[in-house]
């Protein structure tokens, strides 16, 4: 992996750890206590065993004292182990929650360009799966890393004190295992990355197909899906196997190096025993061997952690990439729009989604307060793009859009959007109660206001027929029909009464009888409000003050119904083709 990127990722991880410095210090302290006591217990047991010399030669009094001390050590160790686990949990889970929170915050401010160009499953997989794997790695790291390091340091000191030339042998060979671990780790990183990418691809596929399971079933496309799924699954299996296997060789390799250490200690130790003529006793040698073992064990664990950490870092880098993604330009210091009457001015607007395909060029339009603007044109001509620009979901590439004389880029998004009421053809409802969905735009509305809005949108009667009325939990999937959802979206707007309206085929799924009634309410709503209406239905279009006729991303005609008809251009052609009643 790119070393710089890796350093950046690690820095990012440390940034998340910083708030928990206190807990980190606690963990380190507790690890020290645990390790010291864990090392002391065998020593004490050794002393106890020394009290048992032979038949009739057992010092029971001293034995009892030692047992008390050992018991105390056990109690303290157990307590500090437990507290250490709690600290580690606290750090790992809080960091997880923090990082998820930040990732979600970022989602809320990401430019739509980013979200529109990716599948939901892919982004969600980062926030859910990657975050989880990251925290698992972190937890395991903390649990084993600190105790490991403390054990290494503790035994090293003891060995140096006991016999430093043998300690030197241990000291020199053991780091080889760290190199080995590092070598394997750096070579498996790309495998983990591939695994996490393939996993994201699979999640995206699952998200798409399981999310639209009903369509899949309608087309009996289950078998084909299974094939595609099997193909991705097979690839995932292959790269997972590689990542997991190669990374798991770390542990055996370091264990092998440890056995070399062990043999080295045995060799040098035995020679020392012979050389010193017994000054360095056999008993010392056996203690040494056991400490050498104690010393090398944590290396195994640490290398195992390194493996896990590889995966965690790969996941963290994806998470941090999401969090570090450039947000939409900040609103800070922008003007807060107040008292909007609805004067909108578009001058020389240029826009395109991709540089190769120019879409809107030099669009000029001036709308004074309370005017009704209808946007018509063949399907797919770019009507929705205008809405994207008005709402500032996308920023213009050239020219400007001004509301009440303020360029919308110099105004806070909230204050801009709060003055718009938007109903889209693609209805979207939150998984929440009807009430929560309706009051989205005006959370502090009264019960009466809400019911009045629902009645105006002719949604009240069917809401009352739902199992729990206004408290029924609804969602994007589920039993409501498309038309009913649209009525709810309309009621949502009726409740907040914004000065400007954007209606994109707002009534396309509502039956005409209901629509006629809703139209009355709409007409009342539009009175005195600047409205942009994308519609097919003639009645709406005809009564507009300005009709924008769009084709292939450009506004080709502009004017009132009569003017445009007289002009005999594209609009009149469209009008005769579209609205002539086929009898």
């Amino acid at each position, binding site marked *: 992996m790119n070393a710089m990127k890796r350093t950046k990722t690690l820095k990012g991880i440390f940034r998340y750890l910083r708030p928990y410095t206190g807990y980190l210090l606690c963990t380190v302290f507790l690890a020290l206590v645990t390790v010291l006591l864990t090392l002391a217990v*065998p020593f004490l047991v050794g002393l106890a065993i020394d009290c048992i*010399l*032979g*038949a009739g*030669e057992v010092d*029971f009094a001293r034995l009892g004292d030692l*047992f008390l001390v050992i018991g105390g050590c*056990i109690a303290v*160790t157990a*307590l500090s*182990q437990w507290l250490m*686990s*709690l600290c580690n*949990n606290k750090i790992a*889970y809080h960091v997880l*929650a923090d990082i998820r*929170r930040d990732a979600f915050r970022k989602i809320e401010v990401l430019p*739509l360009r980013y979200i*529109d*160009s990716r599948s*939901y*499953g892919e982004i969600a*997989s980062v*926030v859910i*799966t990657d975050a*989880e794997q990251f925290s698992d790695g972190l937890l395991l790291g903390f*649990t084993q890393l600190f105790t490991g390091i403390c054990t290494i340091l503790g035994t090293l000191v003891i060995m140096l004190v006991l016999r430093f030339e043998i300690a030197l042998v241990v000291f020199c060979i053991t780091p080889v295992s760290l190199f080995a671990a590092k070598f394997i780790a750096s070579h498996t990183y790309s495998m983990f990355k591939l695994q996490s990418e393939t996993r994201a691809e699979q999640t*995206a596929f699952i998200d798409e197909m399981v999310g639209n399971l009903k369509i899949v079933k*309608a087309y*009996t496309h*289950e078998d084909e899906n299974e094939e595609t*799924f099997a193909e991705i699954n097979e690839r995932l*299996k292959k790269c*997972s196997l590689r990542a997991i296997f190669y990374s798991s060789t770390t542990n*055996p390799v370091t*264990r*092998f190096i440890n*056995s070399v250490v062990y*043999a080295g200690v*045995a*060799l040098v130790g*035995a020679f020392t025993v*012979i050389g010193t003529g017994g000054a360095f006793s056999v008993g010392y040698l056996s203690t040494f061997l056991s400490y050498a073992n104690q010393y090398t064990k944590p290396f195994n664990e640490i290398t195992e952690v390194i493996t896990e950490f590889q995966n965690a870092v790969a996941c963290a880098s994806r998470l941090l990439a999401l969090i570090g993604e450039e947000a939409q330009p900040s609103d800070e210091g922008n003007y807060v729009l107040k008292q909007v009457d609805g004067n909108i001015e578009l001058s020389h607007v240029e826009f395109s989604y991709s540089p190769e395909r120019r879409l809107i060029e030099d669009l000029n339009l001036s709308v004074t307060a309370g005017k009704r603007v209808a946007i018509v044109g063949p*399907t797919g001509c770019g*009507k929705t793009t205008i809405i994207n620009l008005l709402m500032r979901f996308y920023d213009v590439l050239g020219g400007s859009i001004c509301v009440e004389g303020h360029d919308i880029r110099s105004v806070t998004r909230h204050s801009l*959007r709060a003055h718009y009421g*938007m109903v889209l053809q693609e209805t*979207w409802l*939150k*998984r929440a109660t009807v009430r929560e969905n309706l009051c*989205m*735009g005006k959370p502090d509305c009264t019960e009466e206001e809400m019911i009045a809005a629902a009645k105006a949108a002719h949604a009240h009667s069917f809401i009352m*027929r739902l199992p729990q009325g206004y408290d029924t939990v609804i969602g994007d999937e589920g039993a409501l*029909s498309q038309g009913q959802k649209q009525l709810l979206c309309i009621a949502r707007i009726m409740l907040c009464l914004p000065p400007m309206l954007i209606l994109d085929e707002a009534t*396309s*799924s509502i*039956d*005409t009888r209901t629509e006629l009634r809703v139209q009355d309410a709409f007409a009342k709503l539009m009175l005195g409000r600047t409205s942009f209406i994308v519609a*097919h239905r*003639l009645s709406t279009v005809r009564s507009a003050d300005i009709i924008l006729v769009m084709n292939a991303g450009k506004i080709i005609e502009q004017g009132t119904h009569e003017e445009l008809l007289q002009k005999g251009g594209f609009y009149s052609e469209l009008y005769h083709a579209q609205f002539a009643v086929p009898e």
Partner: protein
Amino acid sequence: MKHLLSCIKSYRVEAILAPLFKLLEASLELIVPLVVAAIVDHGIAEGDKGYIVGMCLLLVGFGIVGLAFSITAQYFAARAAVGACADLRTRLFRKLQSFSYTQIDEMGTSTMITRMTSDVNQVQTGVNMSLRLFLRSPFIVFGAMAMAFVVDVKAALVFVAVIPLLSVAVFAVMAACIPLYQKVQGKLDRVFLSTRENLAGVRVIRAFCKEESEQKEFELRNGELLAAQKRVGKIAALTNPLTYVLVNLAVIALVYVGALQVNAGALQQGDVIALYGYLSQILVELIKLANLIVTVTKAVSCEKRIERVLDTEGEPDVLCAEYSDAAPAAEGGAYLEFRHVTFSYAGGGAPALTDIHFQVRKGQTVGIIGGTGSGKTTLVNLLPRFYAATEGQVLLEGRDVRTMSATELRERIGIVPQKAVLFKGSIRSNLLWGREDAPEEALLSAVHTAQADDVLAAKGGLDGEIAQEGKNLSGGQRQRLTIARALVRDPEILILDDSASALDYATDARLRAALRETGRTVFIVSQRTASVLQADLILVLDDGKVVGMGSHEDLLRTCSVYREIYRSQFKEEEA
């Protein structure tokens, strides 16, 4: 566990070899102390340096063999874990795909997705760890106990006492954690739902300036998840201290019993040291085990969630083999018949459709019209048996659809749903959903019939790219492509469930004219009278009941609801 086990079964060789090689490696570990003893007893005692070097080389040799064994074990464990979980995922995907519409409604998609992804990943890690350690640990524990018996029976009784206690402790912690972990995964579902919802509804959320409250809500759920994780973490954290305390108390007991035995002359000091050595080995193993217990417990609880899905009976291909009171085909050979059909959604209270009764002849065009929520979509969903009638029968050529295979039924009936969904890929790959082997001409002619030639032109032909959910197309473009997709299938019966709503009148009219030419039986669900005007049979639905049936002219005379609908639009069109 039965599904996981049966998945592992196909990797049984690997699943057996992995722990086996682990055990071989562990046995080597048990021999090492003997070699050291030999060095001390022979090498040092006799001052034989050559012997010492030889023995040390032997230790290195053990190291090499151990390396080979353990790498082999890791390989097989990884193979078994990855392979079995890939199979598990495939099974899960297949099972989810077999769910009926009702089951889909009940379960909700976000939990289905977390089960397929996050849960399976956890299981994979768990299986991998278990294969590597779960046999090794008991092996060492019981091996050490057996060795203790060789040394001294009385002292070994300490082992006999402590090992069950240890098992109880370990399993009690696991048992307490499993349901808590399941709760954690449940909370994770909610966090996932929030995330997904915010991506899908990004425009509406931003339009309503709801970013902050959405964030608050997410943080609330995130906090709940955190609390649940910490709760289970607190209990899981007990494993390590608990085992430590138990083993070290056993050490005290052992030394005490040892002291008594030595005092009585039944045992020697060296034996006590050996016994203590074995107990230490047990402790080391248990500490390893305790570190993994979180992983394994998580895996088990995730596995349970997966099992619950796999244990659910999917939708059978044929609902019931025979339907006893199926009368022979109705007189006049009705092609399609609804016979007193009543339908209620599961848990939905009042029936969505009541006593629907009508017949259709082959090649007829049937229009279904009615208000929002009057049951039009529900009615057509009964035809391909997405939902089965609660009462009465839906008959195709005299056969109850419940007795027909879902595959056959859905191949004969093409439905274009209200929600125009396209999938990531190209226009071609989407159209081929209709029929895998459809030739190029069939695709083009379907596109032409669906009035989508211009979409093709705009997107650069059949290979034009389509983003997930067809996000790069307008509503109308999507609708026409979904119609084309259904036409590629060349079904006997085509159902358009309000699928032309985003089309302008002219395109809609041309589409209907083109469809009429194909001569198949067509159901058109619409809110526009213009769309159903020329149908051979028009059903007028109101509140789940048929309030009018017949041709346009008949209905204008007899049906007040139809008249009202017609007037509401006629006025508009004429105005």
